[in-house]
């Protein structure tokens, strides 16, 4: 059984040690929020020592510190940073390092071994200052309530296979063996005949409100100017009007099946070989779209057909920026 109070204490020791010795200027870690057991990514450093006491590690660290890094890249540039990462976060970090988005020498990586996350809002709000949070191989317990498996609210964690983190510092021991589980949700969908599958996905595409939350929370969706409906344009006052006028509109603002599908399918392709299956896009979606049902279509091909391990090592070549002679061909009409 894992006791997250003691693991958090160990984490705080490591973080404060790094700061005291000046090995890092700032640390990105999770702290307890106002609405426990929810947590939030926080920047710890000089002048924020009071937050150090609140640094926490638990199955409720459900956001990604790598997303924090990507969103605050400009403000944190040139600073030596510590970052606390779960397994999927470290995978995402490796993807960004592969693409030279971040520099390894700027980072001290503190890994927290993760057995799977749980949805804080499903547990009763704990009273009192110290709340025991523990996990066994199958579930998470807060005080007296235990939830496991599908009831934990985090179905992507159930099919996580990552357990090989090699960070600079590490906290915790794995409580369960992850292995390489089969993705049952895909099998059920793929067994449907094409017409039924189209109906299923058309309903999904239709419900999207194009808030782009999936893109913003994703730890590896880090392009400054997104190819699809950019939230931020990489232009300056010196950018020529002709350049601005010629920027293609790949998906127009209309919320319709075709435009929403262009957005969702393009994002899926841009995530091919980069998606670490953290599931945050699906959890964040305000209208509850089962986004992993689209992303896993490419994740499955990457894993099963191309045998590529996403985010295994910063020195690996990115999936779509490489090829192999043994890559399969179109099997013709029956592929």
């Amino acid at each position, binding site marked *: 059984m894992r006791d997250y109070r003691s693991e958090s204490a160990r984490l705080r020791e490591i973080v404060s040690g790094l700061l005291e010795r000046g090995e890092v200027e700032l640390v990105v870690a999770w702290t307890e929020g106002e609405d426990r057991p929810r947590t939030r990514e926080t920047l710890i450093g000089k002048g924020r020592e009071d937050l150090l006491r609140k640094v926490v590690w638990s199955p409720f660290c459900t956001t990604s510190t790598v997303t924090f890094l990507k969103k605050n890249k400009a403000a944190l540039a040139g600073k030596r940073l510590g970052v606390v990462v779960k397994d999927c976060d470290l995978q995402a970090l490796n993807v960004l390092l592969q693409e030279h988005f971040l520099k390894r020498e700027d980072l001290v990586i503190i890994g927290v071994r993760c057995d799977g996350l749980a949805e804080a809002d499903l547990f009763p709000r704990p009273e009192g200052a110290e709340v025991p949070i523990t996990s066994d191989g199958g579930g998470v317990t807060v005080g007296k309530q235990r939830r496991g498996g599908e009831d934990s609210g985090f179905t992507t964690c159930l099919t996580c296979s990552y357990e090989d983190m090699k960070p600079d510092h590490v906290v915790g021991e794995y409580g369960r063996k992850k292995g390489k589980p089969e993705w049952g949700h895909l099998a059920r969908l793929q067994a449907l005949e094409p017409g039924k599958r189209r109906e299923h996905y058309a309903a999904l595409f239709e419900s999207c409100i194009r808030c782009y939350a999936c893109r913003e929370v994703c730890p590896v969706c880090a392009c400054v100017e997104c190819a699809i409906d950019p939230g931020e344009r990489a232009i300056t006052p010196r950018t020529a009007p002709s350049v601005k006028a010629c920027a293609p509109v790949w998906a127009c603002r209309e*919320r319709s099946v075709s435009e929403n599908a262009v957005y969702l399918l393009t994002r899926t392709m841009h995530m091919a070989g980069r998606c670490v299956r953290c599931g945050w896009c699906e959890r964040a979606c*305000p209208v509850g779209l089962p986004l992993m049902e689209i992303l896993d279509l490419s994740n499955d091909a990457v894993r099963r057909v191309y045998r590529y391990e996403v985010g295994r090592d910063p020195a690996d070549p990115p999936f779509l920026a490489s090829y192999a002679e043994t890559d399969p061909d179109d099997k013709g009409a029956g592929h």
Partner: protein
Amino acid sequence: MSAIRVPASRMEKALAETGWRVMVPSGAGRKGGYVELRAGGRLPRECGDHTKPSTPPKGLVFPNNEELLSYVLGVKGEIEVGPASHTMARTVLYGTPPCDTASFRALDSALLKDMAEPGYAGKRGLLGVIGMACSRAGRWCFCTSVGLSPRSNIGADLMVYPDGDDLLVERVSDRLDGLWKRLEAGAAGADEKALRAVEGKFVPRVLNFVFEAEKLADALEKAFGSPYWKEFSERCVSCGICTFLCPTCHCFDITDVAKDELSGKRLRTWDTCQFPEFTGETSAHNPRKERWARQRQRVLHKFLYHPRNHGHMMCTGCGRCIRYCPVDINIAEGVMRLGGSK
């Protein structure tokens, strides 16, 4: 009388007799929404945070996709512009909790005051709102902090208080008078005592903060330059969920969509002040380039600018922005730090 007691089935029958479209909250949370009640369907018997959909009802009168006009280029070069019909089926929205009911007050003052916005006005004139008292607060609710309560009838045309198999129905405005008269005929009156008695079932949650509208507005104005905004927005990812799910937010974008070289339409879609490009200008200058500037604007719009312009806070305390924010940013927490009082 201004209040009557009717069995809930009577309300179902009366609504069915009007032939209007009846929209009800269906499903709670992310998978829920305001949907059309089927013929013969059962009206919701209670409402609360546990039955509240993630999407608010504003989409009925302020849709995410709205055609403003269409155009066709003729063979001789003439342009035919087709106006959109800013209309909809006559609709009753039934069973909204006070936080959603009150959203129409904010939307009406923003979109109808001085010069009515045609798209909104056309639909709003065809919408009647039957609000329902709220029986269960959620962990993120704070309607009582913004001058509302589980019994508030602001924004409602009729207000219902569920009482077992009965409803106490209160007439708040004259918009649904036809329906009211149908219900009133032969119904038992409900006096003040009865109304107070049933209201006692809908008890506000005790919260440890109250926002006094004017004091808060002044405090936030003074805090414009506070460094706290940066801390508040540090982990914000500008996803816009807070504003898309907010029942009172109504910013929009207008895009021209060409179907082919000869025809197309002008479309209005929801936009959010949280997107970086919301204030992006053609010159590439962006007065709200930083996330903290955008979050500050969101908070001030709700608790300073709208109250100063319209006399009420542009927040109904529904809590959706707090519950669904993927990075746990809490607007109430922020406001408390800067100007709320205990």
